[in-house]
C-alpha cells in the first residue's frame, strides 16, 4: 500500500503532458519531424539516426495536481494536503506517461526522383494513461459515512497501458513547388497491453427509513472489465530463482518486440503547403491504426447487481448466510480469452507559419529555406479513452547560424497556461545533436510542475 502510494504520488509529481512534441513539430532541420508529419517539407539527402540514441523521448503528465501540493515542506499536515488534493482532482484528471526510444531511424532521397524521400525505422514506445478514480479514492480515504445516498461510479475507473515496438516505413514527396505530401505505414508489435475503459455501474449506500434495515448497499448494473494481452503467460512463469525469472520475462518481451506478439497496423499521413512564399500550412494525422489482440489474451469481467441490507436474524435459511458467496453469485468474475481490438491513440497536428528575414550575403547553407526566422501557430489533439486532449502553441523559429537552430514555443493546454518550450539543434558537419524541453518556467521548482517533456538525440544528416 505504502509503496503504491509513494509510486502514485511520485508519478503525480514528475508530471509532463500528452504526446505533444510542440518543439519538434515542423522543425524540418531534424529528420524526427517526419515522425510527426510524414509530409514535412524536409530537404535531406539522407539521414541516419545513431542507433538507440536518435530520439529519447520522455513525457510524463499529471493533470490536476503536482508533487508539491502534497509533499511541500510547509508545516501543514500531510493528511490535510492529501485530502485537499483528492478534493481538487476530478475524475477527468489523469496521469500519463509516454516514453519513446528510437532503435534505428534512417532515410534517403531517391536517385530516380529527387522529389521522393524514403524513411523508415523501428522505435519502442510505452504509453500509459490512468484517470484519477475520484469516487473510489474518496471512498478509500473518507469512507461512505459522509456519502450516504451518493453513488460511487465504476466509470471513474479508466486506464490503458501499451508497451510495443513500431516498425515503420514512409515516403515524402514534393508534389510541386507548393505541396509536399507524405505517408507512413506502421506495423505495431505489442509486448504488453492492458485496458479498463467503459466501465459502468454504481455502488451506493442509501438510507431506507421504511426498509428492512437502516441502509441498503446497492451495486447497480455493474459492468467492469480489465482486458490484458501478454499478461497471462508472464503470470505462468514459475521460477524460484529471481534472475532466471527475469530472464524468462525478458526473453518473452524480446520475442514479442520482434513481431512475435500481437500485431497491428496503422498509418501516418501529412502534408505541407506553401500558401505563398512566406506562408506555410501543415497538417498531419499519426497513429491511425489498431492492434489486434489474439494471443495471450485474458479478460476479467464482472457484471451484475447486488443488494445488501445486513444479516437477517433469525436466519431462515438452513445453510446460513454468507454474504461473500451471495456477492460472488450475483456478480461473478469471469475470465475470458476473447480476442479484442484496440485503436491506437490517434494524434492530429496542424500549423500555420510565417517565415521572414531573408538571408542576404554569402555563406548561407540555405538548403531548406532562405529565411532565418519564422513564427506561427500550432494545434495538437490526441484521442484518449475519456476525451481528447488539446494543446495550442505559438512558436518562434530562429536560425542562429548554420550550426545552430532553435525554436521557442508557448503552449496552452489542459494543464498549464504558461508552458514555454525550447529546442536547440546543432549541425556540425554531418553530425546533428538536438535537445528539447518544455515547461521551462517551472524549472525553478520542478516539484510544482505539472508537466515537462524532454527529447534529445543524435543524427547523421546530409
Amino acid at each position, binding site marked *: *500500500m*505504502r509503496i503504491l*502510494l*509513494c509510486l502514485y504520488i511520485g508519478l503525480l509529481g514528475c508530471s509532463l503532458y500528452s504526446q505533444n512534441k510542440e518543439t519538434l513539430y515542423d522543425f524540418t532541420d531534424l529528420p524526427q519531424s517526419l515522425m510527426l508529419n510524414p509530409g514535412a517539407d524536409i530537404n535531406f539527402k539522407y539521414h541516419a539516426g545513431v542507433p538507440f540514441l536518435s530520439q529519447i523521448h520522455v513525457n510524463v503528465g499529471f493533470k490536476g495536481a503536482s*508533487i*508539491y501540493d502534497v*509533499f*511541500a*515542506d*510547509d508545516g501543514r*499536515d*500531510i*493528511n490535510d494536503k*492529501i485530502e485537499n488534493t483528492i478534493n481538487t482532482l476530478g475524475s477527468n484528471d489523469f496521469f500519463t506517461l509516454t516514453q519513446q526510444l528510437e532503435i534505428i531511424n534512417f532515410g534517403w532521397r531517391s536517385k530516380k526522383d529527387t522529389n521522393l524521400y524514403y524513411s523508415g525505422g523501428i522505435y519502442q514506445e510505452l504509453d500509459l494513461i490512468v484517470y484519477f478514480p475520484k469516487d473510489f479514492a474518496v*471512498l*478509500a*480515504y*473518507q*469512507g*461512505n*459515512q*459522509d456519502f*450516504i445516498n451518493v453513488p460511487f461510479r465504476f466509470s471513474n475507473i479508466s486506464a490503458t497501458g501499451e508497451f510495443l515496438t513500431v516498425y515503420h516505413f514512409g515516403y515524402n514527396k514534393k508534389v510541386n513547388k507548393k505541396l509536399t505530401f507524405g505517408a507512413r505505414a506502421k506495423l505495431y508489435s505489442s509486448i504488453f497491453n492492458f485496458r479498463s475503459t467503459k466501465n459502468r455501474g454504481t455502488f451506493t*449506500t442509501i438510507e431506507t427509513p421504511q426498509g*428492512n*434495515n*437502516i*441502509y*441498503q*448497499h446497492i451495486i447497480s448494473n455493474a459492468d467492469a472489465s480489465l482486458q490484458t494481452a501478454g499478461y497471462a503467460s508472464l503470470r505462468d512463469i514459475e521460477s524460484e530463482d529471481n534472475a532466471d525469472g527475469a530472464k524468462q520475462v525478458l526473453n518473452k518481451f524480446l520475442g514479442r518486440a520482434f513481431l512475435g506478439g500481437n500485431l497491428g497496423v496503422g498509418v501516418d499521413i501529412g502534408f505541407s503547403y506553401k500558401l505563398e512564399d512566406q506562408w506555410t500550412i501543415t497538417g498531419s494525422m499519426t497513429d491511425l491504426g489498431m492492434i489486434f489482440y489474439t494471443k495471450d489474451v485474458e479478460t476479467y469481467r464482472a457484471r451484475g447487481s447486488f443488494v*445488501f*441490507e*445486513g*444479516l*437477517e*436474524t*433469525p*436466519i431462515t435459511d438452513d445453510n*446460513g*448466510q*454468507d454474504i461473500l458467496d451471495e456477492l460472488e453469485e450475483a456478480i461473478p468474475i469471469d475470465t475470458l480469452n476473447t480476442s479484442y481490438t484496440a485503436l491506437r491513440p490517434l494524434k492530429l497536428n496542424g500549423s500555420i507559419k510565417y517565415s521572414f528575414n531573408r538571408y542576404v550575403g554569402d555563406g548561407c547553407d540555405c538548403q531548406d529555406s532562405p529565411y532565418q526566422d519564422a513564427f506561427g501557430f500550432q494545434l495538437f489533439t490526441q484521442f484518449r479513452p475519456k476525451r481528447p486532449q488539446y494543446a495550442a502553441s505559438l512558436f518562434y523559429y530562429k536560425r*542562429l*547560424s*548554420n*550550426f*545552430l537552430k532553435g525554436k521557442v514555443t508557448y503552449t496552452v493546454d489542459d494543464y498549464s497556461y504558461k508552458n514555454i518550450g*525550447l529546442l*536547440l539543434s*546543432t549541425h*556540425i558537419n554531418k553530425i546533428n545533436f538536438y535537445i528539447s*524541453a518544455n515547461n*521551462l518556467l517551472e*524549472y*525553478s*521548482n*520542478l*516539484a*510544482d510542475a505539472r508537466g515537462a517533456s524532454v527529447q534529445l538525440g543524435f543524427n547523421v544528416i546530409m
Partner: protein
Amino acid sequence: MKTKKTYALLLFIGAILITTSCVKELDFEQLDEVVLTPVFEADFIYSEFDVEDYIPQGTPSNTEFTIPPEVLRDTINYDLVGTDFAIDNLDRVELTMEVRNTIQRAFTLQFQFLTQTGQPIGQLYSIEVRAGLGEGTEPVVSPQPGDPNNPIVLDNATLNQLASAQKIATEIIVPTLNSDLRGALQIRSKASYYVNYQL
C-alpha cells in the same frame, strides 16, 4: 570560430537550466505521518418479530403464553472484528441499534460474541426495548439518546479482546405474552467502522 561560439552558447544555456532547475522544499518523510481515517457504515443485523406468528395454534383469547428462548436465539458468522486488519487498523466499531416496537411489552435484546467453538468472549451487550403502544400506533423507538449501549462502542482495547471472535449470538428476551397482543418488533442496525490505517 562559429563552432566554438555555438558550443559556448549551448554550454551557457545548459548552465542556466541546471542552475535554475531545482526541487524546492520537499519532505518525503511526511509519508510516515500519513494516516487514512475513513469511516465506513454498513448494515448490521435486522429482524422482524410479529407476535401473531408466535401465538401457539388454538390458544384461546386473552391467554398468557411464553415463547421458548431458543426460538428467538440465533448465531451468525461475524468475524469482521476478529481479523488482523480490524485489530491493527480499526480505531473502534460502533454498533447502532434501532428497535421499533408496537407490542405493548418491553423486551431485552442481547448480543454476545462467540469463538469458533461457541465460547462466549467479551461482555454481554443488552439493549432495553421500551413497550409499544399497540398495533397501528406509531412505533416506540429504542434505545433513545442517553440509554446505555447507544451505540455499543467496541474500542480498540475491546477489539483486541475480541480477537478470536468468529460469531455473534443474538437473543430477544421475551416476557410472558398474551394471545390478544398484536404488533411487531422491528430490529434495524448498522455498524460504523472507524479505520485508522497508518502507512
